Each structure stands twice: as C-alpha cells, then as structure tokens.
C-alpha cells in the first residue's frame, strides 16, 4: 500500500492503495467516476480514455503508482449535463451516441484532439485522431460529423472572444 497524490478534474486527491491498481479502477472504485469504462483492459478500445497532463491515454494501462503528481481529466471533468462542453453538445446534436458505452472515451479523445487544432478537421484527420476508440453501435459517421461541428463551434466561440 502506498499514498499517492494527484489531481482529478482539477481537485487535489490522494489514495492509499496497491501501486499496481490501474488508474481506471481507482477512478471508478475510489472516486465513483464511472464515466470511464473498462471494455478490453488491454489498450485496444479506448473506452477508458482520460487525459494525463493533457495527453490522452488508456487508463486501463496506467498503474496508479505511475501518476504521482499528475493531473488527470476524465469525461466528467470535460463537462456535466449542467455545463456541457461543445464537443459533448455536438455529440448529442449530431446523434453520435447510441448505447453510449464508448462515448465517454470518444469525448475525451475528441476534446484532446480539438485542443490541439484550430481549424475544422477533415474526415481523414478525425479518423486518425479517433482511430483508437472502438464503437460498435454508431458506424462512426455521426461521430465524425460531431467532431467537425464542435470544431466549427469552437472556432466561432474563439473568434467572438478574441
């Protein structure tokens, strides 16, 4: 057992657990942040995606001992129903979620992708960015549109604030 201090969605937290526990399990079991899902446990599906210091990673592959002093953002940290992020709103508007089990991971990956660009991405760019997130329901078409819609909205928002 070990004390590990880190940040989750902006808040300082600490846990005392075996350092071999995965970050995903800690988020779900200790903090009740159940938006991140385990689907494969192997880094294949992306449904557990979170941001570690701004970089998107599969939290099923990260051991809690590795993230001392790191800042973690989960889907809940991107937005809740009361304050949805543009990308979340775009997923709802475009119908990009069906069963929704893959959706939190896709939201985190999309947010991280959009943070790094300031143009409306092409289909190919979105495909490269989200290639690590499996979805069995949607056929991805509306996901692609949602990311582009969000990018467009984000640009207009930036323009109006500048």
């Amino acid at each position, binding site marked *: 057992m070990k004390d590990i201090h880190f940040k989750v969605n902006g808040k300082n937290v600490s846990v005392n657990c075996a350092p071999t526990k995965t970050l995903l399990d800690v988020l779900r079991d200790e903090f009740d942040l159940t938006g991140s899902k385990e689907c494969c446990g192997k880094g*294949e599906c992306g449904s557990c995606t979170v941001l570690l210091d701004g970089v998107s990673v599969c939290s099923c592959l990260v051991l809690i001992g590795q993230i001392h002093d790191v800042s973690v953002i*989960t889907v809940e940290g991107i937005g809740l129903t009361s304050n949805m992020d543009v990308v979340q709103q775009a997923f709802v508007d475009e119908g990009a979620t069906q069963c*929704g089990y893959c959706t939190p991971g896709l939201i985190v990956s999309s947010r991280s992708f959009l943070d790094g660009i300031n143009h409306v991405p092409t289909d190919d760019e979105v*495909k490269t960015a989200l290639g690590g997130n499996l979805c*069995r329901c949607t056929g991805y078409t509306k996901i692609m549109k949602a990311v582009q819609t969000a990018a467009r909205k984000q640009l207009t928002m930036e323009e109006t604030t500048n």
Partner: protein
Amino acid sequence: MSKQVEETQAYKDKQNLQWVGKPVKRIDGSEKVTGEQKYKTDYNYPNMVWGKVLRAKYPFAKIKSIDTTKAEAHPDVVCVLTHKDIPGFNGFGIVTPDQPVLCENVVRCTGDAVALVGAETLEAAESALELIEVDYEVLDPVTDAEKAMVQGAPKLHPDGNIHSHVSIRNGDIDKGFEEADYIFENTFYSPRQMHAFIETEGGWGMLKPDGSLMIQCPAQYGHRDKLQIARALALNPERIHVYSSPNGGGFGGKDEITVQIHLALLAHNISGRPVKIHLSREESVLAGIKRHPFKVTVKTGATKDGSLVANKVCAIADTGAYASLGGAVTALAIEHASGPYKIPNVDMEGFCVYTNNGIAGAFRGFGVNQVCTGIETHIDMLAEKTGLDPVEIRKKNAYRQGDVSSLGHVVKSSVGTIETLEKAEQCDLWKNRDLYKSQVSEPWKKRGVAIATSFHGVGMGLGSPDYGAATMELLEDGRFKVGVAIEEIGTGNGTVYAQVAAECLKCSLDHIIVVQGDTTKTLDSGTISASRSTYTGGRAIATAAPNMINLLSETAAEILDVPKSEIELANNKLMVAGDESQFVTYKQICEILLDKRKSTRVEGHFYLPKEKEELRNSGGAPHHLYGYMTHVVMVEVDTLTGQTDVLKVVAIPDAGKVLNPQGLEGQSEGGAVMGIGYTLYEDVLIEDGMHKTKNFTDYIIPTIRETPEIVTIPVESNEETGPFGAKGIAEVVMIPIIPAIMAAIHDATGARINRLPATPERIYHAMQATKKPSLISR
C-alpha cells in the same frame, strides 16, 4: 362516437405531425456524453462480495468429481457453489433449457460454468477458482457440424446432435429446374461473428431484507429473465425484480441469460450482501453467445429472360453446445433464403446442430445474414450470364404487396423492395459508377460497385407470443410517465416512445418521461429483438393514449362543467372547443384525480398481427411484416495483397414511416459498418473446441478508419398497422451490404468469394484462381 374513433386511430394520422418524423434528439443524450449515465456495473454498494465463475477446462469432458474444500478454506472466500447448490431446475435457455446453470456430469464447451465463487476481493475470487479441483474425463470434441449429424457421432445431448430441422417447400422443384435455362450451384460459408458490444456482461444481485431478489443486469428481456431465474432457484417470479436498462450494446447477445442466474445463486448464499460479477473481455469472448456459422448450399434456376424459377437451399447451422435461439435462427434463415422474391418453386431446409464450438444464439439479422449471400450472388451470376441488368432482374422477380412470395403466401403488409431498387438506380454512386471506378487511388488497385437487396421479418413470427404493453401515468407535476419494458440497448427506442406519446397526447416532448427495463414499473412487453421495439412499443403507447385522453377529457369536462364531447386536446392542456379562455392544465387534472383518490394511470395492450396459417415444418413462417432494404457499395481492392476497403455505401431501407430520422440513420450507419466487419474481418476462431480468439487484440472490428462514406435514403412505404406507418429497422440494415460487398469485389477483380470473412488472403487466392494458368507468373 366519431371523436372516440378518431382518438383510438390517432396512430394512423399522418397529418400535422408535431413530433413523429421530426429531427428529435435523443432524450438520454446528455447523460451519455457526460458519463453520468449509470450502467449496471457502474453502481457500487457497500459490503459487497465479488463473484467469479469457474469455466470448463475442456470443450467436451465428463466431470468425475468436483472438490471445493481448498477453495472454501481460503480466508477471503465467502462461498463456493456447485450444481448441488441449485434449488430448482439446473438449466436455462430461451426455447429449450438445455444449458446447465452449473455443470454436473458433463461439460460441452469451454464457456460452460462449473462452479461459482463469492469472495471479499476480486483477487481472492480469482485465486479461489484455481483451488477448485475438478476431475475430468476428457472426450474428443465434436467440432464439425456436418460430422456431428452423422450416425455414430458422439452425442452431445440425449436426443442427438440435430437440435432442429425445418423445411419449406412450394411448387415443384424438379419441374422448376427443368424449365431453367441456367442453373447456378454454390456453397457459402459464414463466420462466427461476435456481438462485440463495448459493455461486457455483468451486474449485481442482492437479496433484500424483505426476501425479494434484486437483479441489476443489462439484458434484452428482463421479464423473461425473471422466469428463467425463478425456475433455476425455485422462486416465486413475483419476488424477483430485474433492472435491465440501459445496456451498453446488445445486438442479440444479451437476449439469453448471461450472468443473471449466477448472481441470483450467489445472492442467496451470502446473507443479504450485494454481489457483483463483471466479465472480463476474455471471459465474454469465451462464454458469450456468437452468430451461428452456416454452411449453405444453394442451387438456383433461371430462364433466359431473367426469371427465377427454382431455388433449392440446404443450410447447416453450428449452434455450439446449446440451443439458445438456434432453432429460431435456423427457421428464420430458411424463411428468408429465397430473398424478397416470387420464385415459384422452392425447396429449402435447415438443420441446427450441436457441436463443442462455444455457444451460438441471437444476433442482429438472426440467420438472414448467412443465407442472403446465396440468392444474391446467383442473381449477379445470372446478370453476368445473360447480360441483363442486375437491378432489372431483381425488380422483375421481387414481390409486391399482394403478390405471392416464394413461400407461397400472399404478402399483405407493405413491401418497398421495388422503390428501394429504383432509388438505388437513381443514386449518384450507381449512375456514375463508371466514373467512380476509374478514380482508383493507386494504379494497382481496382474498384467495383455493386448492389444487393434483402429483407427481414419484423416481430416473432408464428407460434411465439408477441405482444406489447405500455403504461401511462399522469404525475403531480403535470408530466406523463410512459412505461414500456422493452429495454434501451442503444437504439434510442425510448426517444421514439416519447415522440409517439407526445404526438398522441398532443403535448410537448418535455412532458414525457420514459421508463424502460424495470420489471417493478413496467408490464411485460416482450423482448428487444426481432426489429420489433419501435413497432410494438409504439403501438402499445398508441393504444394506451386514448385511455389517458379519455381520463383527461372526463376530468376536464367535470372541472369546466361542460359535456365531455366539448373538450378538446390542445397543446399541453385541455380546453373547451373553440374557447381558448376555458382550459385546464394536466397538473390541475392530476390534483383533482388524486383528491378523489382516482388512479392517474392507464394501460395499453397490443398483439402483433400474425398470419393465419403457419407453413408446415417451417418453425414460424411466414411473418406478417417485413422490412426491406437495398445497398449499393463501392470497394477498392489492392490486387497485390487482396486488402479491400469499402469506400462508399448507399443504404436504402424501407422501414415504413420513419419516426426519428436521426435514429434511423444511426441504425443504418451502425448496421452498414457491422456488415462490413462481418464480410471482411470478423470471425471468432475455435480450433478443437478451444478459442484462438481472445480479445480485441485478435478480434478485429471496424474502427473509424474503416468507415466509408454512408448515405441513407429511406423509402417510406406506409404500413397500415404500424404506429404512424412504421415497421422495423435494426436488423435489415446489416444484411444486403454483405452480398453487395461480395459482388463489388467480383466487379473489381472477377473473383468470387464464398467463404466469409473475405480476408485479404482469401481475396488474393480467389483473384489468383480467376487468372488463366498461363498468366500466373511464378
């Protein structure tokens, strides 16, 4: 009187629709995109116990003894359970309960459950599994369905290995082939596709202080699960409460019992503590049901003018160790094996056979995916032979409403095949196919464009109960709580239910709350399968609505002191006809009803229409209703490697009236991509009864990178009996795309594929085989 009639027929009104057919967003969208939606395994309860299942070590073996002493002695183990601990009937299965809850004498596949462990931690549960000693006498597994059928093959079940046999005959098959100018005969093999829902099977079980049992588990028919649990545990089903919505994907894979009975058994042995089981992906691959691999031999006869005159089909389905819905899958396959055509002479039969290859069961498409390839490929071969247009041949042979189908029955419900084919002919991809085909991305790649059409029954067919039921309750805040048991598995049926309810009641959408998949709050309304949930749930709501309108109008009349006949539904209120100043709100009505201690809840019940007579030995054919669909696809094949990409898809469904365009497109796009996976990549490999496929590392489903451009052009045939004219969509969307891709590969390369998935290796070899020997360079 006339008013009453109008009210009960409200679902037929296609004029002035406010919600139905409109681009309404999902009512549960926000919770899904924020991660706030709780799936069953997202709950946490204090003082919990972890449940684990010991699976069989061999695909086929006798159990000589099971010794649990060491496992029980583990300090963190709460209980270890075997077949001896099952109070009721040790079996489950939707149709034939031939699958043991916990095996006693024999194991028949490596997904079989032998023992259960409840422990303080997951790690303890896992190590306890290793401490259970099972003494097996290993038997040779039966791994080939055809060999399993012969006399002398080791019997997996007391009645032998043929679980079911169905056949449909119509006309005179020999005469048909005599009339034929061309005869095509080929054998097609299909893969063991995995549902690959992103949420694996899992959930919670808890015995409540009052002795009732709570099961929280994603599932496709909670009310039926209740009965299966009750049978195994010898419980009163009324004391079992199943919470089965939402699901993180189902596609048929959660229609059968997954972990519910195991949860129930554990819950009964841990003194009221909550127990959780959540399968890892590896365990889900091993124990979960799959799509039946089929071997289908098809012989089709046609005349020079392009008329199909005979079709003979023999299909063998590998159901694995247990029946589940295998018999029904085989029956539906045979019902659909001659396509949506009017072939006068058919002779089709199917066998559902036990082997030691895992377990197969319900999966989107339900057998039609496996058989549509034969007839559609043969039509393309006919087009090639005769020089006739493949679309024209299909139009010529397709039945219309009122025609006699290949099965010999008059099709009374709506049929959109011809319209879907016409739309296909007019679509950009088909019209400009030569141009698109010339735009290859590399000189060594070739493109092909092709078309295919198919259909799929809506509802359960003859011989199975098929009903819908809805409740509608006026709440104190003036909203309506609409209860339909049919679960949310991703399709967005809840949103459609809200639309139908709001439309019938003439209120706004935010006045509707939908409850699904909760046996304590909803009436049994059948399963979420068979493309039935929009049709069935929609009609049930449309049947409940007039009762609610009646209750509202009666009360409003009383309050406003006018005869009931003068009361009119207006937006979110009831008013005196022609006088907007005189109105009452739903809230006021509820207050009055509660004051008078009157119920504010009504019900609506509905039976799906059925055909009068079942075709002998058909296992449930014909259906009353079918959805129809045509796909046009473009592929690009790398001639050096066989690597194939689907680049464009035009999806043209006839699902009747579209109630929610975004939802329909979502089904169409998801179905197309799942169909691409089926045709090109997916197969769970089992050798000698052992799974070679373990996780998404070696089971490849399409990612966003493999996603083509998909355009959906619905054809809205009007189904008289449907809610606002709707039928069903969820399965047909992945069917014609399969033969369409196969035909497009042929169009590109000249190679015919008869074994799916069409992997690069298979396509490469098929391409080589088309070359004249002298041209093959070595």
